[in-house]
């Protein structure tokens, strides 16, 4: 998985490419841990994300919890496969997906 970050002041945008699964989720977790303290809004661009497993969902929930009291977290450009995972797990109702 490739993680591309684009920070503009206190707004952070992260684009993911590949698979967010058990093997790659720790990489994203590490990046987020280092970055989230200093930022107000987080946007995750999933246009090149192929799929997500429960390990990836856990990282998203943790980030969502950190960002909720601040400017929030948004997930954009979700493909059909990822959308279905969000739907069956109820994450569609929890996360802010555009």
């Amino acid at each position: 998985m490739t993680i591309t970050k684009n920070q503009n002041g206190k707004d952070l945008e992260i684009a993911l490419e590949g698979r967010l699964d058990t093997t790659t989720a720790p990489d994203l977790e590490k990046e987020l841990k280092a970055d989230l303290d200093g930022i107000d809004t987080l946007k995750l661009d999933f246009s090149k994300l192929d799929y997500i497993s429960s390990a990836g969902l856990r990282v998203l929930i943790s980030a969502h919890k950190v960002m909720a009291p601040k400017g929030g977290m948004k997930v954009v450009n979700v493909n059909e496969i990822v959308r279905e995972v969000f739907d069956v797990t109820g994450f569609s109702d929890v996360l802010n997906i555009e």
Partner: protein
Amino acid sequence: MAEITLQAVVSSIPNATGFIEGELEAVGCPLKTQMQIDVAVDEVFTNIASYAYGDEGGSATIRFEFDPETRTVEITFTDSGVPFDPMTMKDPDVTLSAEERPIGGLGIFLVKKTMDSVSYQYRDGQNQLTIRKKI
């Protein structure tokens, strides 16, 4: 029928999904279904890598079978670790808010939701978990 035996560790997962992808491509599986099966393989193998063996470690075997008549894929995971039936895990309450959500059980729940069937048996000292999906 094809089979692969791997060390039951998380770092084996790319080999596990790679093996299954190769088999699925060979039988003309649509990409979306392939991705769903990949996620299921990731979840089941992660469970085995996390819970089956203690510090001494062990191996897990993945068997792939395809019935061309019904176009059904059957994948069986076998390990000789501690008996563990993931089907007995309670489904997570997906209506809870983010703050109230428990962490466990989400992976196997996802497998149950996206596969046509999931079955477990403990036989000859081995855990056998089988997932089936029409492609």
